[in-house]
């Protein structure tokens, strides 16, 4: 991992670097707050899933640095496009955490979805790599309009195998579109290891096929993730086009709450990567820099817990969406005639109960399996 950009050392053999220009104390603290909020959301969501209060959930434990870092580098007017793995990122752009939780509880409409344009955050994208052309389109549109809008899309190592990854990278580079392709290389796509996904050693080198800069960074280091995004954005705003960033890390957690990694990997390996997880590393770094104290850390944690607890209550206060929700927002131009007939049919029979999320799997391979996003 010696070719990776990194700021945070281990307080030991691996030395710290000074924070990069542009990240002042208050920025570092804010970024830390984001990390804590993301972690708190994620851990709470896993518990909610275990309790059967939300459905199967794609956790991101350990990948918070790949989310908070780049997002913090973007301007509010820039667009970002999450996959299911960055599912709660919109919360850092003003979308209520309750909305994201409601999405995982199976709610649609105004309960589970948000307005992408209002927050400049693409909808949570489930089909792999298919949001990359959207990120390109948004930034391209900005360019056509003469605006300074850039975009960033997150995706996994597995996503680089899809045709849409290639087409988006190619469009962006040919048309010099200000898009940042942020690949979270956690070395796994469900059970498929990186070595079965690509013949290259790195993801970054794939940028060469598009004459695009390809940059590797320690994905467990939020500051490094911020820095490479910041620099890519500079280039983008200068009209120098897109950048591919590879945030190298490891999927410490299972693929999702329904996944049992013991079926395909030695969990000791995951354990070995665990000490690198960004939250404790960042907290130690900030403490070494004297920016964070045990007390302020506890305070930040407390605030995050409170915020997410409130979000959980809010999510659970939503009552079962009406049947209209099926038809309400399908067409922006209004309901076609057969929707009225459909509603008449629906209302003529007794309404089924709300479908409740499933509880935890009782044994591996039973019940909940098959729930990937």
């Amino acid at each position, binding site marked *: 991992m010696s070719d990776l950009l990194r700021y945070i050392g281990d307080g030991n053999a691996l030395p710290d670097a000074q924070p990069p220009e542009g990240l002042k104390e208050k920025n570092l603290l804010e970024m830390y707050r984001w990390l804590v909020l993301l972690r708190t959301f994620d851990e709470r969501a896993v518990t909610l899933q275990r309790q059967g209060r939300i459905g199967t959930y794609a956790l991101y434990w350990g990948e918070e640095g790949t989310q908070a870092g780049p997002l913090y580098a973007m301007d509010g007017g820039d667009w970002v496009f999450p996959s299911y793995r960055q599912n709660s990122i919109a919360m850092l752009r003003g979308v209520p955490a309750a909305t994201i939780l409601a999405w995982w509880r199976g709610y649609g409409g105004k309960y589970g*979805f948000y307005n992408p344009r209002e927050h400049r955050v693409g909808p949570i994208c489930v*089909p792999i790599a298919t949001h*990359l052309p*959207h990120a390109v*389109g948004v930034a391209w549109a900005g360019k056509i309009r003469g605006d300074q809008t850039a975009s960033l899309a997150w995706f996994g190592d597995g996503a680089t195998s899809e045709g849409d990854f290639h087409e988006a990278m190619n469009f962006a580079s040919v048309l010099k579109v200000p898009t940042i392709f942020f690949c979270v290389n956690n070395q796994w796509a469900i059970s498929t290891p990186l070595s079965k996904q690509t013949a290259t050693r790195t993801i970054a080198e794939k940028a060469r096929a598009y004459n695009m800069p390809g940059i590797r960074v320690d994905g467990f280091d939020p500051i490094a993730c911020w820095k490479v995004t910041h620099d890519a954005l500079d280039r983008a705003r200068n009209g120098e086009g897109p950048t591919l960033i590879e945030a190298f890390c490891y999927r410490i957690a299972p693929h999702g709450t329904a996944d049992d990694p013991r079926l395909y990997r030695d969990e000791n390996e995951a354990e070995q990567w665990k000490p690198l997880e960004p939250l404790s590393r960042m907290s130690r770094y900030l403490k070494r820099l004297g920016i964070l104290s045990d007390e302020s850390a506890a305070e930040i944690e407390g605030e995050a817990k409170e915020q997410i607890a409130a979000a959980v209550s809010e999510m659970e206060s939503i009552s079962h969406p009406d049947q209209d929700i099926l038809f309400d927002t399908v*067409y922006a131009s209004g309901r076609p005639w057969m929707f009225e007939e459909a509603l008449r049919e629906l209302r003529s029979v007794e309404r089924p109960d709300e479908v409740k999320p499933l509880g935890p799997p009782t044994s591996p391979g039973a019940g909940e399996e098959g729930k990937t996003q």
Partner: protein
Amino acid sequence: MKANMVEAINKGLHEAMEADDRVVVMGEDVAQTGGVFRVTAGLKDRFGDARVVDTPLAEAGIVGSAIGMSMYGLLPVTEMQFDAFTYPAFEQIVTHAARLAWRSRGEVPASIVVRIPYGGGVRMPELHSDSPEALFVHVPGLKVVCPSTPEDARVMIIAAIEDPDPVIFMEPKKIYRASRDEIPDQPPMAIGNGNGSYNEYLCKARVARDGNDLAIYSYGATVPLCLQAADRLAQERNVDARVVDLRSLFPLDVDIIEEAARECGRALVVHEAPRTAGIGAEVSSLVHERCMLDLEAPVGRVTGYDVPFPQFANEDDYLPSVDRIVAGANRVLDF
């Protein structure tokens, strides 16, 4: 002015781009040459190469980036060079274009138009003659339309661009240059003010020929054939057929469809696409469901067959002909 369908769509595109600077046109070979059918000719010179773009050769990339553009607030019109080359973009159309409104509280629909020159009758090699419209009609969240006259094509392309929802715009290439019709100088609606008049021009069927003995439903390149068949039926057996040009394939204009079936008591659907699970199946089901007691015979279907579109020397064996339509009508009439 007089215009054929190519010129009429071209005119509509000019008008839309003129009225609303959010409209952009993109696709393979659409800018410099104006497209392999010249439908987009002149746009680049008029509106510049930022708004009229020759893209790399990748249909998913075209539709996908158009979706992103529309999120930002533009109104992209994409061209798929030929029918069968829409399939690589199928995933973007189905999982994104069709669901973006639904996925954004109805607030950010994918306001894109996907133009598809489609269908046979033009003596092309393999995969240049498909009729995939039913595939899109079955996908909720899309609108699917298909003009059969130059003026309809001009008005409908403008309405499709104005419509906030994603519109699959099927262009029957066989009749691209079949006739030159009078096109009013001004389109019938105000453009670029988002006042919603698009719906009126997009989702309505049209009675192309009046009559009360047999309803013939069709769209696209088979409409002129149905009109010829209707004339033959009038001559040969004094039957007065009403020809309904569906124009909108999703949503279907159920009122005009029902009215025709009720008033005629007999009906026939005609299209070029394969029969099984095609538009004909849907129209037939609707008519039976709603007008059973008014029907004196089951609704007939004259369609393409459930086979790959043939190599062109045999395409007339595949395509519905006036003879086949008349024969189909006779089967319904003689039931």
